[in-house]
């Protein structure tokens, strides 16, 4: 911090004239007392011999005798005290003059001291003031800088927040894709299965169709010939039996109805998945969360852990305005976690319940699986925190689920003890 060299208006200890140090008001009472004591007149002169103060007879006779004493300023004679009296009474005046000189000298010395002290005080105060002004100026400048910085900081924070939001949205999308990708394996099997038997049925049916058209061709051929019905029956019955058409017709019906069922199954899977992913909707609407839960479960059933039991206890819920696609995603993540919590050697039971209580929709997913160790419990919502093997868990499941629930105006709690199981409770205040 630098300050301008202050332009001092005076310098400490600058030379002073006697009249600056000693005022007539200070001299006058002394001289008056002096005159009362005897002398005819008395005066104090400055360094140029000019009177600063004078007292006594204005027109003294020329015959008077004078005593002169020097007055010192910093040890240097700078003024004179003159005491005048009749020569006849002169001796009595001498001690009086000395006394007056000493008194004046003392006043000069004290005044000088006081003046020097005041000067230094003033100088110091002035400098302190200038320093304060300087400090104040610097502070004002730095405050201004900080304010500007704060302003641009706010802007930067806003930009970064937007970027983060964008990136988070991307992660959300990726998580959704990953979940759907995970489902795809089970789905592939589920679709492939009916598709396989539909194909096989169609192949068989094609063969049957060949036999049927052959039989029909025979009928047509015989119908164009003039033969008896006995003959016709004989000729066709043999062929009918050869072609096993009794069985073919029966089986073809089975094949078709089976294929129809298979195709319907595929259709349902696709419909479930589509409504689960809510690809068609972007904004929220009033939805029955029980429907969403059921739909999520039906999608999940496709890659169900063998031996796991899902118990549903869904009480009627009021319609809840939200983005059901997002909430289904949260349900999926939570239920999937529950399904993966299977402790070896123990039948896994996942209990899914919903109820409406005191203005809140409460959805709970409880499992009797491995639970979460107390050490990890505070970290489960941390992004990318996972205890699963690399590549098998993103560590985003619960993070995303909680953010979705928070986004819907609710909150999510996890209660778990290692070895006993975990309960995730979602509370959504009904608006």
């Amino acid at each position, binding site marked *: 911090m630098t300050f301008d060299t202050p332009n001092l208006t005076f310098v400490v200890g600058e*030379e002073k004239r006697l009249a600056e140090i000693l005022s007539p008001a200070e001299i006058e009472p002394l001289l008056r007392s002096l005159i009362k004591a005897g002398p005819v007149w008395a005066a104090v002169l400055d360094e140029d011999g000019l009177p600063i103060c004078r007292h006594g007879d204005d027109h003294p006779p020329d015959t008077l005798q004078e005593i002169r004493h020097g007055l010192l300023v910093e040890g240097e004679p700078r003024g004179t005290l003159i005491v005048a009296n009749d020569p006849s009474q002169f001796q009595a005046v001498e001690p009086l003059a000395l006394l007056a000189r000493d008194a004046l000298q003392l006043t000069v010395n004290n005044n000088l001291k006081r003046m*020097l002290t005041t000067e230094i005080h003033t100088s110091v105060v002035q400098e302190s003031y200038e320093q304060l002004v300087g400090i104040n100026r610097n502070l004002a400048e730095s405050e201004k800088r900080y304010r500007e910085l704060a302003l641009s900081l706010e802007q930067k924070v806003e930009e970064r927040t937007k970027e983060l939001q964008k990136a988070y949205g991307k992660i959300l999308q990726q998580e959704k894709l990953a979940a759907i990708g995970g489902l795809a394996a089970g789905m592939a099997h589920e679709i492939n299965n009916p598709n396989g038997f539909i194909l096989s049925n169609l192949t068989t049916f094609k063969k049957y169709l060949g036999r049927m058209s052959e039989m029909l061709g025979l009928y047509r051929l015989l119908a164009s010939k003039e033969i008896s019905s006995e003959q016709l029956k004989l000729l066709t019955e043999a062929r009918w039996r050869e072609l096993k058409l009794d069985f073919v017709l029966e089986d073809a019906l089975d094949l078709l109805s089976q294929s129809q069922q298979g195709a319907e199954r595929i259709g349902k899977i696709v419909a479930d998945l589509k409504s689960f992913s809510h690809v068609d909707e972007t904004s929220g609407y009033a939805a029955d969360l029980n429907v969403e839960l059921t739909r999520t479960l039906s999608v999940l059933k496709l890659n169900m852990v063998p031996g796991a039991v899902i118990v549903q206890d869904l009480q009627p819920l009021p319609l809840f305005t939200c983005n059901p696609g997002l909430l289904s995603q949260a349900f999926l993540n939570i239920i999937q976690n529950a399904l993966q919590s299977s402790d070896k050697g123990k039948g896994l039971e996942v209990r899914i319940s919903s109820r409406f209580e005191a203005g809140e929709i409460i959805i709970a997913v409880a499992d009797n699986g491995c639970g979460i160790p107390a050490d990890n419990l505070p970290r489960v919502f941390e992004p990318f925190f996972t205890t699963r093997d690399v590549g098998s868990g993103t560590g985003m499941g619960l993070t995303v689920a909680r953010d979705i629930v928070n986004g819907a105006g609710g909150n999510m709690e996890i209660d778990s003890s290692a070895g006993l199981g975990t309960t995730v409770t979602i509370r959504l205040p009904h608006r």
Partner: protein
Amino acid sequence: MIEFDEQQQRIVLKLVYYGPALSGKTTNLLALHDQLSLDGRGELMLLDTTEDRTIYFDLLPFFYVAPSGMKIKIKVYTVPGQVRHDATRKAVLQRADGVVFVADSQLGRMSVNFESFDNLEKNLSMVGLSIERLPLVVQFNKRDVVDVVPEEEIFKAWEPTGLPVIMASALKGFGVLETFGKILEETFDSINARYGLTARYGVEREAFLSEIMKVSK
């Protein structure tokens, strides 16, 4: 220089005893007051003190009148050494013609000395004086104390500065006149070079020095 009145034939010079707290600046002035003759010097003025420590400054004036009638008054000031009196130090330092830096010889006071010297350099530049050109004498005081830094060490440390370094004990009275004489010489030479004291006003160097340095009987 406080004043140069050509008509009145009068010059008032200012010398400042600078240095850290308790290094013996006031003691230096007291010793000068005791050792130099009243003829040629004024009275020592000690402004108010707290617990015997200078809070404003001390002032000892000297007078010299050249045969030509040219009057030279020298005002010797001390400054308060304590760090918190920096503003006072700066005020006293204004328009100084020469500086005596009184350092404390005692072991463990070296860093304090250097801090104070730094402070002198800074304050000089703040009042518009250059430490390069200003007459400056360094005195290592308290040589009478047992635990002091050896002379050789001090000379070795200060030699690069090219400044005159004088060993003293203001309490015992030695080195004080030597210090004062040295700064008087340097100041006279510096003023003489600028204003031609000898050439234009007939102020002779030796006469000036011996008159002021008259020892009291």
